């Protein structure tokens, strides 16, 4: 097992820094989507600081692994991760959502490291399939990762894509569902019940894994298992908590798309740093 070599300490540090940045940038922007950004931190950290083959100095490297943020409203977690990885200066993060900034409210692929403009929900998995197909056609061994929101699974296109990926035997594709249980209007199971989620993907012929989305060992182990699977795409249902790390945001649908005010953010980040 690779498990022995996973640098958990470094990953934890990165996650803490990225959580702070998410809060600071959303606070500065006075709008944005903190909840679904905070729930996905460990997933992105596992990918960008451990699993993925990528080079921040060569964002257009043809052999790079690709990460598609289908739940584009979680742009803050993507931008802060990319900046922390070195794709662009972290100082730019505070321009989020401001006029003339590259850091749009939802990802724009002018930003180095952004592979897909995932603002409108439901499209990212299709786009990831396209990238994975191109990899197969070109006989390249890069992998494609797509992060989907659980609320996003309401979109019909997700299931069109879910049907297509196994047809094309895309074992170079891994979908990850950020199962934080909350969408804009409330709990996913109240707005549009989607359980049993794992069985749905299984019925669509995917290799299905379920993990605690905050446990680096579990997330990374699943990513490794996905890579060794042949002829089938893998979906990892990552169980998370929306607003993770900020007690008053956790499990509160209000923080899907609401920014805490700046003073609250400063206090929060101070407390989190002390922890």
């Amino acid at each position, binding site marked *: 097992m690779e498990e022995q070599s996973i640098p958990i300490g470094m990953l934890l540090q990165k996650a803490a820094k990225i959580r702070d940045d998410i809060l600071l940038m959303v606070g500065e922007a006075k709008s944005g989507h903190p909840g679904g950004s905070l729930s996905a931190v460990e997933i992105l950290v596992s990918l960008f600081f451990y699993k993925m083959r990528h080079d921040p100095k060569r964002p257009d490297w043809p052999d790079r692994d690709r990460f598609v943020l289908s739940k584009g409203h979680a742009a803050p977690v993507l931008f802060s991760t990319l900046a922390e990885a070195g794709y662009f200066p972290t100082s730019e993060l505070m321009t989020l959502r401001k006029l003339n900034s590259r850091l749009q409210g939802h990802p724009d692929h002018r930003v180095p490291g952004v592979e897909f403009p995932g603002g409108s929900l439901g499209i990212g998995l*299709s*786009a990831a399939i396209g990238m994975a*197909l191109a990899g197969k056609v070109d006989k390249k061994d890069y992998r494609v990762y797509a992060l989907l929101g659980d609320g996003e699974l309401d979109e019909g296109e997700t299931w*069109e894509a879910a*049907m*297509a990926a196994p047809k094309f035997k895309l074992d170079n594709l891994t979908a990850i569902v950020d199962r934080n249980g909350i969408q804009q209007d409330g709990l996913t199971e109240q707005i549009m019940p989607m359980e049993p989620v794992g069985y749905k993907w299984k019925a669509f012929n995917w290799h299905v894994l379920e993990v605690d989305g905050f446990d680096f060992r579990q997330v990374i182990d699943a990513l490794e298992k996905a890579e060794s699977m042949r002829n089938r795409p893998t979906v990892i249902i990552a169980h998370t908590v929306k607003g993770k790390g900020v007690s008053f945001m956790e499990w509160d649908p209000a923080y899907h798309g609401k920014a805490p005010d700046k003073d609250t953010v400063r206090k929060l980040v101070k407390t989190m740093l002390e922890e």
Partner: protein
Amino acid sequence: MLVQLASMRDAYAEVLLELGAEDARVVVLGADTSVSIKTSLFGDRYPERFFNVGIAEANMMGIAAGLALAGKTPFVTTYAAFVPGKCLDQIRNAIAYPNLNVKIVSSHGGLTVGPDGASHQTIEDVATMRSIPRMHVVVPADAPSTKSLIAQACRTLGPFYIRLSRPSVPTIYSASKDVEVGRAKILREGSDIGIIACGIMVNEAMEAAETLSKTGVSAEVVDSHTVKPLDSETIVRVARKTGALVTAEEQNVIGGLGGAVAEAITESYPVPISRVGVRDTFGESGEHQELMVKYGLTSKEIARAAKHLIKSR
């Protein structure tokens, strides 16, 4: 005179094979209409570069976006009734916004798909696609220009919407090199009225000009195959020369070529305009010639509009 008829679909299938041979980046996507539109011929020759996604247009557009992001030049094809209708969001957000090199070719546009009726007739697609930033919109008039315009689209970076009609149409262009994306083509010179047409209505415009000439009216006919970016320069020049314009298209009169010409003329050289097209109504089942007559998509209608404009001058 012997009129030679040729199918735009056949022309598309032929040019796809040529493009596939010369450019390994060309890939083709279909949504269970590939046999009908004949893109399956590409799939027969290049199976590793052909993807049939089933009846799932939204997914098809999203996959095309991903292929383009990974360096491919995807041609995405189905009936115009479903593109852009079933996948406008994907076209806008995943293809046009990031300015991807995706070529959307729809077949069976307009009313002339015929007996299938209104659900399968498309009269809004040109207007819709035209309103999306970065999108090119091309409506070829015949088989040779279909081939040429599609080949040019393949070599031009950025998203294209190319709309074909179902019926075989008379050949207008003898050599396909006569046609250039973004440049309207003057097919017949005249001085009393300008007829700006696209798609299968170009042939009707040519016939109208012939009819008009017999009554002493000299009509200039322009094939404005590229609806966006519109060749405003040529169209304004025709407006200055003739003093009145008739537009003709197999589309709703709202927002298509007629709308584009009206916008261009109004801003720089206003002249009276009459728009020939579907008059903001849905179609119905019928043979394609019957539909063209009933819904006013004929040379007769163009000639009538031209005479009316000239009389009221």
